[in-house]
């Protein structure tokens, strides 16, 4: 890992050198081990994004506009690699995976077998690149489940433990400090005045005379973002989660303009997470590694919630201000909150029907 002095992990399918140096019999990764091979220096090392991954060549800026014809060249690259006698079985396999991944269909329209197959390809591809195994799920929505969320404004103290937990759980880009959750510090007596609220404070909390309100994707029942997507790369699942197929997204950012709640984030550059911080328990629609130029957002931690766990933010909240559960279960705590507390939602007049309620003690 220390071979090219890279602190970050980045999706880099075409860098074959990595896996050679990744394991060493003495387990020493700092480069002191005598048996470790010195890897060749790759001089124009750079981050590879989703569609550069499929090139089997390293590229510099001078050749960059050749990328315009990316898809064609991927095909050519894959064919030449798979026909080549010289290249190893592994790189053939990688080319095969890249080819299938580039031209696979929309996840929502896949059968369960196809979903399983793409998940297996992604796991295998990760293994080929890094030598590490991840666990990726393609679990579908469960019957009789509709996820909902409630946020207790009187309880939140603004500690931001939820933000931390969310970033770690969901493998968000560390460079741009992408965060799904925003905590707005509001002045008591000013009502819910978001304009005057501070969502990036750093002082001892809770501050005198202030209260805190968290926002994130509200998983609207009538989501404006999914309606505008030209390719149906984002949709509402049966359990109410609004999800994105990162591989199908074309990055037009129309959904971002359509969301009234600032719930969506765009990967303006190649997202990077330090290798040791990667959460390896993943879901296809959730926290698997993203690439540059695609949208992402809160999925109520689909990898956790579909397994019965609470989302990371709920689990991390030290005050119990965050309540998550099944809206269809009449005995669930979320239902009790909706039925017994004075709940409201943000921008209800827009008709988006968010499944994220606020309440006070």
């Amino acid at each position, binding site marked *: 890992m220390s071979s090219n002095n890279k602190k970050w992990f980045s999706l880099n399918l075409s860098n074959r050198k990595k896996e050679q140096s990744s394991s060493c019999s003495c387990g020493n990764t700092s480069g002191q081990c005598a048996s470790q091979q010195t890897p060749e220096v790759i001089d124009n090392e750079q981050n590879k994004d989703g569609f550069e991954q499929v090139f089997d060549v390293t590229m510099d800026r001078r050749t960059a506009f050749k990328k315009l014809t990316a898809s064609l060249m991927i095909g050519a690259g894959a064919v030449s690699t798979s026909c080549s006698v010289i290249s190893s079985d592994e790189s053939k396999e990688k080319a095969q995976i890249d080819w299938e991944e580039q031209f696979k269909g929309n996840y929502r329209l896949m059968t369960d077998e196809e979903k399983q197959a793409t998940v297996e390809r992604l796991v295998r591809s990760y293994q080929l690149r890094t030598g590490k195994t991840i666990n990726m799920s393609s679990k579908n929505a469960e019957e*009789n489940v509709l996820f909902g969320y409630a946020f207790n404004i009187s309880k939140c103290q*603004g500690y931001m433990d939820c933000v931390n937990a969310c970033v770690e759980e969901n493998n968000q880009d560390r460079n741009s*400090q992408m965060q799904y959750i925003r905590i707005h510090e509001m002045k008591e007596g000013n009502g819910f005045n978001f304009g005057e609220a501070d969502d990036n404070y750093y002082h001892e*909390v809770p501050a005198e005379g202030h209260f805190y309100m968290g926002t994130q994707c509200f998983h609207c029942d009538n989501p404006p973002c999914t309606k505008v997507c030209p390719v149906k790369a984002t949709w509402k699942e049966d359990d109410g989660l609004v999800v994105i197929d990162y591989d199908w997204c074309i990055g037009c950012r129309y959904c971002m303009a359509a969301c009234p709640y600032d719930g969506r984030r765009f990967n303006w550059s190649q997202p990077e997470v330090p290798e040791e911080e990667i959460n390896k328990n993943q879901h296809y629609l959730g926290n698997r590694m993203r690439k540059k130029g695609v949208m992402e957002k809160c999925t109520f931690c689909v990898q956790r919630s579909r397994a*019965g766990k609470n989302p990371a933010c709920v689990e991390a909240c030290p*005050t119990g201000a965050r309540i998550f559960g099944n*809206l269809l279960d009449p*005995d669930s705590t979320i239902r*009790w909150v909706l039925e017994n507390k004075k709940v409201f939602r943000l921008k209800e007049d827009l008709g988006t*029907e968010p499944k994220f309620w606020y309440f006070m003690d």
Partner: protein
Amino acid sequence: MINKYKYILLLGCSLILISLLFSCKSHHEDEYHNIVDKIEAKSTLYNGTSISSEAYIEPNTIEITEGEHTFLIPERKSQITSYACTECHAKPLGELQDSTKYKKAHWNIKLKHANAHTMNCVTCHNSADMDNLKSLTGEAIDFNRSYNLCSQCHTQQFKDWKGGAHGKRIGGWAPPRASLTCVNCHNPHQPQIKSKWPVRYNTQKEIERD
């Protein structure tokens, strides 16, 4: 010629109309007026799910039933250092109060809970029965069910806690439900939650906004 144009015009208009109709029809509105109606309607058919959060709940829990709510809370007694209290408090408390004879015990506990008019140690502790707490009327309350003590004054919080609006849920969202009890978050002697610094600060966002 003019007839021909009219025909084309008509054709164009009807094409537009058809496509509009098509788009309105395919735009299948949910059969429910809003999300609350949908929840109400769909939950009448609710017959449980296969998802359980049993696996995520720690073993040291006890089941309690309060009103119509039954759920798990963490067991308390095993978490208290040197419980049972009677292991030290063999004699009644009155005999231990001579400071010339004995070293001060529990000196670190400062009571910051209500004011001195309302509460002191013996409001909750029983000098005659140290292994149990006591209610305002002097009845014994088990340490594992200390919420019964808190609920004497904090009735609204107790109601919310039973329902699930107050107190953190542990394990998962799926049944069975397990929640923290009062003393897991609030120190009973100083129940106010302390202030601290936020765990992170987003420097990128500041740059973006300047």
